[in-house]
C-alpha cells in the first residue's frame, strides 16, 4: 500500500532528526526544571508548541521576568521565519493535498523537518511522507522532554550546560553537508551569518532583537542570492 510505505519512509528519514532531538529536548526539560517551571507546564509546552528555539527563549524570558506580552511577541517574531519555510514547503507538497491536511501537517514543521523535507529530492512530497517525518520528530521531542524532567536532575551541572549546544549542533549537521556540495550554499549562509553578526554586535542595531535579526539576515541573504545567482542553488 502506497500510504503505508510513504509513511514508513517518512519515519525512516526522520530517525536522525528524532535521535538528534533527544539531547535537545532533554536539555530543555533540564533547563525548565532548574528554573523551577512546573513540570506540567514544561510538558504542555512540548506538546502544544513543539518548537525548540521558541521554547528555550520562552523559559529564558520567563526567568528574566519578562511580561507575557513580551514573551508572546518575541516568540512570534522568532517564528516568522516559518512563514518563509512553509511558503517554500507549499510549493514542494503535492498540489492535491487538501487544506485540512495542510493545516495538520503545518503543526509539525520545524527547522529540521522542513530542511529534511525540502532538500530530499526534486520530486513532490506526499502527505503521508511528511506525516511520518513529523510524527517521529514530535514523539522524540516529547519523550526527550520527559527524560529531561524526570530522569536527568541527577546529571552534573557541567553536562547540563554543555547540552545547550545540541540545538546548534543539529543546525550545523543540516547545513555543512550542503555547503560541501555547493559553493552557492556556502556564500548564502556566510552572508546570512555576516548580516546577523552585524545586527547583533553593532551598537546602532542594539534595539534589534534576536528574532528580528534572524529574519532580516535570512531575507536579505536570500534576496542577495536571488540577484547574484540567476540559476538558483546549483548542485554538483
Amino acid at each position, binding site marked *: 500500500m502506497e500510504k503505508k510505505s510513504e509513511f514508513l519512509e517518512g519515519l525512516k528519514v526522520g530517525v536522525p532528526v528524532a535521535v538528534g532531538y533527544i539531547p535537545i529536548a532533554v536539555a530543555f526539560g533540564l533547563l525548565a526544571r532548574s528554573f523551577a517551571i512546573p513540570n506540567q507546564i514544561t510538558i504542555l509546552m512540548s506538546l502544544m508548541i513543539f518548537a525548540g528555539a521558541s521554547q528555550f527563549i520562552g523559559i529564558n524570558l520567563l526567568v528574566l521576568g519578562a511580561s507575557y506580552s513580551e514573551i508572546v511577541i518575541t516568540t512570534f517574531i522568532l517564528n516568522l521565519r516559518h512563514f518563509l519555510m512553509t511558503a517554500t514547503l507549499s510549493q514542494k507538497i503535492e*498540489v492535491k493535498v487538501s487544506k485540512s491536511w495542510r493545516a495538520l501537517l503545518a503543526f509539525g514543521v520545524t527547522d529540521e523537518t522542513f530542511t529534511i523535507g525540502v532538500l530530499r529530492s526534486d520530486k513532490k512530497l506526499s502527505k503521508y511522507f511528511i506525516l511520518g517525518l513529523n510524527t517521529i520528530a514530535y514523539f522524540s521531542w516529547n519523550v526527550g522532554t520527559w527524560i529531561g524532567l524526570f530522569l536527568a536532575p541527577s546529571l552534573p551541572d557541567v553536562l547540563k550546560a554543555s547540552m545547550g549546544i545540541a540545538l546548534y549542533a543539529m543546525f550545523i549537521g543540516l547545513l555543512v553537508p550542503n555547503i560541501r556540495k555547493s559553493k552557492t550554499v556556502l556564500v548564502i549562509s556566510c552572508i546570512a551569518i555576516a548580516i546577523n553578526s552585524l545586527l547583533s554586535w553593532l551598537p546602532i542595531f542594539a534595539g534589534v532583537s534576536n528574532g528580528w535579526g534572524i529574519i532580516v539576515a535570512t531575507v536579505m541573504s536570500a534576496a542577495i542570492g536571488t540577484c547574484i545567482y540567476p540559476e538558483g542553488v546549483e548542485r554538483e
Partner: protein
Amino acid sequence: MLILLIVAMAAVTYVPRMLPLVLLQNIALPNYINRFMGFIPYAALGALIFPGVLHSTGTNHLEPAIVGCIMSIILAFLRCNLILVVGGGIAGAFIVNIVFL
C-alpha cells in the same frame, strides 16, 4: 495563568506555520520567488547558528561553545550521521568545560 501564556505561544507558533501552507496551495509562484525560497533554508540555518551558538553553553565562557561548534563542523564535513554531529558537539563542549574551566 502560565497556561494562558503557553496557549498564546502555541498560537503564534502555529499560525506562521499554517497560513502559507494552506493559502499557497494552488498558486504557482514566479520563478524568481521560487529561486528566492530555494535559498531560504541555507540562509536561515546560517543566521540561526551564528552568533547564537556562542552563548549556548552559558554566558560566562565562550570556549566550550566554540570547541563544540568546531567538533560539529568537522564531523558534519566528514559526512557523519546527524546523531554523531550532535553527540560530538556536546562532547566537545563538555570536555572543555571539565578540563579547562
